[in-house]
Structure formats: structure tokens, C-alpha cells
């Protein structure tokens, strides 16, 4: 299991691994939105939490098809499926590698982008907390979506169509944490819900994804 995680991290950091692409995309969103909405600080402060979360969502989505597609194309997925590793574990490790290479940098970069979007000061810590708790769910839900489309030649668009509805609860609770936190309101319920979604998704989805991969390899 650890070997797989390390291999995926190594592949992501080597040339062509795509590390940093989704981070750059996240930055793009934070720059594009004020250009479209206008520079009024009050407006930006109002939408900052939502924009940052939507940006995180789209940035995660962008890199999802890499989770399994490359391994599928070069035959590694066949070999992993016949290896002693449980396939659910393979899914979980690949999702974890995805989070470490896309989600975690996003969390780290989010305060800088929050400055661009004029997020109220009290919101910063909750932005970090909500992204840190919520983005792992984005990775594992995305891995599930990627497992459904792994056998398809042009699955990218379909992947978005399948995954984005599944992201809705995470998005709502995540953005709510930041919004309430920025207003100084209580954030207990959305934060608990966000954590529950992440935990539940990591507990259940690797198995569902393993089922989907088996069906796709058949």
C-alpha cells in the first residue's frame, strides 16, 4: 500500500505528472472571478467563501481523470487488480495520492487567494479548516467518478457530469463553514456534517469504486 502511494506521488512530481496544474487553475479562478464580478470589496467579501470552494471543486475535478486513466492505458490497472493488494485499498491509496498532490497544495494556497477575494479576517481559519476537512472528500468522490469512466476514451466531460452532483453536499457545508465563520456565527453543525461526509465517503466509496473498476476491466 505504501509503495503504491509513494509511486503515485513520485509519478505526480516527475515530468508530465501534472503536479501544480490544479493549483494554477485554482489561482485562475480567484483572478477571473473579480474580473467578471467587479472590484467592489463588499461584493467580493460576500462571495469569497463560495468562490474559493467552487474553485477548489473545479480544480479537483480537473485532475480526476489522471487517477486511473494512465494506469488503465498502460496496463498497470490490470496488474494491480491481479496483485495481492485489495482493489479498494488501491483506490484509497490513489485517492490519497491525488489529495496530497492537488488538495493539500490547494488548502495551503487558499489564504493567499482569500486576500485577493477580500475574505473577512475571521474567515481565514475556517477557510483553512473547511478545506482541510472537505477536500479529502473531493478526492475520494472524484476517484469513484473516475472509476466509473475509466474504460471510456473521452470520459472527461462525462466525469464532470457524474461527479459534480456528488460534490454538492460537500460544497454546501464547506462554503457554509467559511461563510458562518466569517460572520462570526456558529459553525458546529456544518463542520460536523462536512467531517461526516468526508469520513463516510472514505469508508464506503473505495469499495464502490473497486466494484466499478472490476466491471470496467472485465
Amino acid at each position, binding site marked *: 500500500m505504501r*509503495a503504491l502511494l509513494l509511486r503515485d506521488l513520485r509519478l505526480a512530481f516527475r515530468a508530465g505528472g501534472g503536479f501544480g496544474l490544479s493549483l494554477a487553475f485554482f489561482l485562475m479562478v480567484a483572478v477571473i472571478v473579480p474580473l467578471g464580478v467587479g472590484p467592489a470589496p463588499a461584493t467580493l467579501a460576500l462571495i469569497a467563501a463560495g468562490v474559493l470552494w467552487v474553485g477548489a471543486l473545479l480544480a479537483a475535478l480537473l485532475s480526476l481523470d489522471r487517477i486511473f486513466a494512465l494506469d488503465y492505458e*498502460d496496463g498497470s490497472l490490470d496488474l494491480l487488480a*491481479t496483485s495481492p493488494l485489495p482493489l479498494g485499498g488501491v483506490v484509497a491509496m490513489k485517492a490519497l495520492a491525488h489529495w496530497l498532490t492537488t488538495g493539500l497544495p490547494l488548502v495551503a494556497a487558499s489564504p493567499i487567494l482569500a486576500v485577493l477575494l477580500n475574505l473577512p479576517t475571521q474567515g481565514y481559519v475556517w477557510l483553512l479548516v473547511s478545506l482541510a476537512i472537505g477536500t479529502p472528500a473531493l478526492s475520494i468522490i472524484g476517484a469513484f467518478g473516475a472509476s466509473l469512466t475509466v474504460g471510456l476514451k473521452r470520459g472527461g466531460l462525462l466525469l464532470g457530469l457524474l461527479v459534480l452532483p456528488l460534490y454538492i453536499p460537500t460544497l454546501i457545508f464547506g462554503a457554509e463553514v467559511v461563510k458562518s465563520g466569517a460572520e462570526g456565527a456558529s459553525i458546529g453543525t456544518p463542520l460536523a456534517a462536512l467531517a461526516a461526509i468526508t469520513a463516510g465517503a472514505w469508508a464506503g466509496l473505495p469499495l464502490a469504486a473497486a466494484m466499478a473498476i472490476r466491471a470496467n*476491466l472485465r
Partner: protein
Amino acid sequence: MLTAQNVSVARAGVMVLVGVSFHLTAGRALILRGPNGAGKTTLLRAVAGLQPLAGGSLNGGEDDIAYGAHSDGVKPTLTVAENLTFWAQIYGTHLTAPAMAAMQMETLANRRAGQLSAGQKRRLGLARILVTGRKIWVLDEPTVSLDAASVALFGAAVQAHLAAGGAALIATHIDLGFAAGVLDITPFRADAHAPVLSGQFDEAFL
């Protein structure tokens, strides 16, 4: 070590092979033959556990099989040694060095796999099989893009594996240079009059 009884396999809802039986014992290799599209790959994938059987049964070999497909699962941005070490860790062995020696890849150990020639890449794929330490090798066209010398190298590796009490099921068209049983799957090809299996696959709709 591995017994197939009356095995039937299907691909995309269509029966491909019906009633294949064979028995694989330690120290023996079985060569699968048959024209293109006969169902060799489908049968091997079923034996490797990637596909459900459409009928019959497979006994033994659950945790002993190392499967080698058309594509080697080689990562071009990792070096030869990194590629092999990864699979050794997955299978919990330390056979990277002997496997590289057997396939004469020591000099290439630190070369990126993406810079290898097609034949070298194939040798790396075969070294991966050695690295697993598994008893039963299930190989699909292992000699594609290998030159004569490399084929001999591969033949020697298989023979060493058999001598150590292993077994191998290999789909290939060429002579590997050692004695082995041959299973021609042509007679088992499903035709329009193949027996209808109730509840399974598209036959349910006929």
C-alpha cells in the same frame, strides 16, 4: 496446481470459448495456441481472475498467479529499477536484483523506462513477472517485439522457473525452445450452436 474444468468464457456478452479443460502441474508449461481472435486473451484474463467465468470451474492457484498482459504496466518516468522495486514491494518480495540479472537489465537499471526500446521494455515487463515470486505464470504473448536473443533469455527464465517447481500458462505463436504441453483452443470456439446457458449473458435473450 491449477485445474480448469469445462471452462467457458464470454467477451462483451458473447460466448467465446466453451468447455475448455486443462490441468497444470508443477514443473510444467502449457502453451495456448489458436488463431487471432480465438479467445486466448479472454481465457487468460479469466484465469487471472479479471473476468468472471461463463461456465465451468477453476481450481487452485488463487494466490499463486502472476499475470502478464499485452501491455507491461511500465511507467515511462520511473527508472527500470524503480519500476521493478515497486512491483516487488507490492508482492512483498526482494527479487529485483535477480530478476534484472535474469533479463540482463543491470546496465539499464537507472535508465528511465520511457527511454527503453520496445524490446527492452518488454524485457522489463517480463522481469516484473519474475519479481512477483508467484508460482504460476499466466502470460499473454510474452515474446512480442523480442529479438531472438531475448526470446532465448526468456525461454531460459521460464525453464528455470519450471525447474524450481513453478508452472506456466503461455499464449504464444513461436517456439520457446523447450518442451511444453500444447493446448490448441480452436476446437473449443463457441459457434452459433453453442449450448445456451440459462440466466447468463445474452443467451438469456435468445
